[in-house]
């Protein structure tokens, strides 16, 4: 059992929790994720390890409530336990001193971006982080990111905080100014990562993206996580989750993410009718 030691809501529908998982904390490297199950009938879902404390034997998870499992987790409290946490999974980020690295995060993607940014910063890179969200209230972890960035730029779609516009416009601005950039790392919703690649491709800036295909085992056993990279089938959980952004078939990923739309809604509605979990934390609007 993996006890939840701390939990807080850090944005609308976004939670952060510190979980006891010493073996994962010990082995984890930036870019890696875990797979968890909340209860006996639960689904296995992947979440990035957003931070860790090896001495305390803990990992931090940050998640957005989008379906039955992430909503359920939203109703769990300190003292509750996840029945399964397995990891760390996936190939770690390739970290070295590249020179200048731009880390672009959108929405919940800022959470998985954090350990990578930290790794790049600690490796001596000049790190520019560009964070974005629809509106100010949805921005997460900006302070955490700031501590591991040389420069930080923030954009909101509605202009309620920072630059008015998309992260891609900010990135385009840097390129147009002639900023020397050696590597771009982009994590966020699929349309955002696709848009980033559309900006970096003409400038021939190497771009790493982190993909979030649907997964089951996370060890290369099932093939649920198939993505196409350079026209070749790859398994997101073992070959990734990070890939060369120029080579990824984002349209296929989008279609595959919609595979269980119907059943997911059924499960969520059932959850809404008979919510489980701790009453003190029922998500808003339920």
């Amino acid at each position, binding site marked *: 059992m993996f006890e939840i030691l701390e939990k807080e809501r850090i944005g609308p529908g976004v939670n952060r929790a510190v979980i006891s998982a010493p073996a994962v904390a010990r082995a984890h490297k930036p870019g890696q994720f875990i797979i968890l199950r909340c209860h006996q009938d639960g689904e296995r879902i992947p979440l990035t390890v957003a931070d860790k404390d090896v001495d305390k034997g803990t990992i931090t998870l940050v998640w957005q409530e989008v379906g039955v499992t992430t909503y359920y987790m939203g109703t769990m409290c300190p003292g509750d336990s996840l029945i399964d946490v397995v*990891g760390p999974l996936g190939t770690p980020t390739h970290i070295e001193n590249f020179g200048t690295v731009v880390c672009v995060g959108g929405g919940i993607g800022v959470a998985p971006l954090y350990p990578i940014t930290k790794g790049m910063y600690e490796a001596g890179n000049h790190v520019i982080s560009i964070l974005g969200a629809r509106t100010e209230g949805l921005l997460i972890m900006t302070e955490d990111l700031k501590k591991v960035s040389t420069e930080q730029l923030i954009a909101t779609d509605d202009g309620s905080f920072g630059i008015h516009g998309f992260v891609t416009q900010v990135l385009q601005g840097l390129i147009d100014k002639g900023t020397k950039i050696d590597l771009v790392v982009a994590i966020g919703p699929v349309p955002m990562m696709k848009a980033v690649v559309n900006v970096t491709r003409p400038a021939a800036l190497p771009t790493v993206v982190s993909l979030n295909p649907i997964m089951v085992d996370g*060890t290369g*056993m099932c*093939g649920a996580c198939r993505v196409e990279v350079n026209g070749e089938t790859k398994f997101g959980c073992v070959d990734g989750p990070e890939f060369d952004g120029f080579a990824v078939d984002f349209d*296929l990923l989008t279609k595959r993410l919609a595979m269980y739309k119907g059943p*997911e809604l059924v499960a969520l509605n059932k959850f809404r009718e008979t919510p489980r979990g701790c009453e003190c934390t029922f998500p808003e609007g339920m």
Partner: protein
Amino acid sequence: MSEQEEKKAVKPKKPKIPRQKMPEQDPIERAHNFYEVALGYDNDLALLEASRCLKCKKPYCISGCPVEVDIPDFLEMVKAGDLIGAAWKVKEKNSLPRIAGRVCPQESQCEAKCVLNKKGKGEPCAIGRLERYVTDWAAVHGEGKMPQLPKPTGLKVGVVGSGPAGLTLAGALIKKGVAVTVFEALHELGGVLVYGIPEFRLPKAIVRAEVDELRQLGVEFKTNWVVGRTQTVDELLEKEKYDGVFIGTGAGAPLFLKIPGENLNGVYSANEFLTRANLMKAYLFPQADTPIAKGRRVVVFGGGNVAMDSARTALRLGAEEVTIVYRRTMDELPARAEEVHHAVEEGIRFELLAAPLEIIGNEAGWAVGVHCQKMQLGEPDASGRRRPVPIPGETFNIECDTAIVSIGNAANPLVPSTTIGLETNKWGNIVADPESGKTSKDRVWAGGDIVTGAATVILAMGAGRKSALAMMDTFGIG
């Protein structure tokens, strides 16, 4: 005594009793539920069937069993009504008999060698069914006391993977006073026995009971532990000071056909389809949270046990039509005869001498059909089977909304690629001595599907047993 004489000597005593059928759920009923298909013998049937055994002086049946169960001896005890004794007799050689009795391909192993079969009657003694009967009976009626464990030797062994190979090794070593820790990547123990082979063939409660027995003997289990990620084999040896490590990680990486359309929605590997259904209990959705595509028209590519299991699972999930597409004919199907027979009874369609060329998709990215090539059998290939060759220009389409690729599994590279100095062959299988399981790396043994490629439960168990003996030899205990 020659075989001829032997037959003569016993013949007059034996009335002709036919091989006893095992009661089964009605095919129409069972095609809609996940309960076990074969219901097992009752006492009368078991006695009658056991009485058919001739207690041969030279029991060929034993030579057909990879773990050499003392078949005539245990059958003799059944005849004498000593079912507990019979169960213990089986367990001397076979540590997972309730499982083997259900899933062993007996028709090509012990029963193939039984003299009652050899004499051309094709009616061998139903060894597997009796093995199942006595060990099920013993599990329900108490098996007497646990074996006496020897004093701990102070040795400890790490086992990677909780499939039949790893479980068998764990059982053999714990009984010799070796501390055993089993590391398993998934959240449940049993390997293919829990995530692959469906409930209707092998109830999970049986696997759980076998695992619990090992736990009671003192085997430690660590689930959610991916060796190569959570900890490497080298760390287990150097940091955690295990005296030996056994790798039994199975052949878990699914192969795909490499044809257009294979990444469309609705296209599964058999591993994913079966894992969702079995391990994640997707057939209970939405009571269980994991969804699965409930196809109306399902196509399965392949002809092995895994293909049969996928097809029959799809049927039970509510498919109206399930078609197995196989390159050769019924005679070459690699699946167990009983599985094919059950599939046919349940109404699975067979599209034989056909191979998929492309999976056709719609705008939204869902599979809607399969474009197939007609085949014919040509010259025999290296394996002696006649090779299927395309008939030029003859193609056809099958409509479908779900397609399940069941053409085999390759070795998962996770452990070899993270272990220093572990030799693999060109297919990525770990190179290990067939008699001892010893690998190229000091203090590391391996066995089961990760060494042989996809094989059988009983061969994996045999490999686990051999490695256990080899380890004891190395440690100087035994």
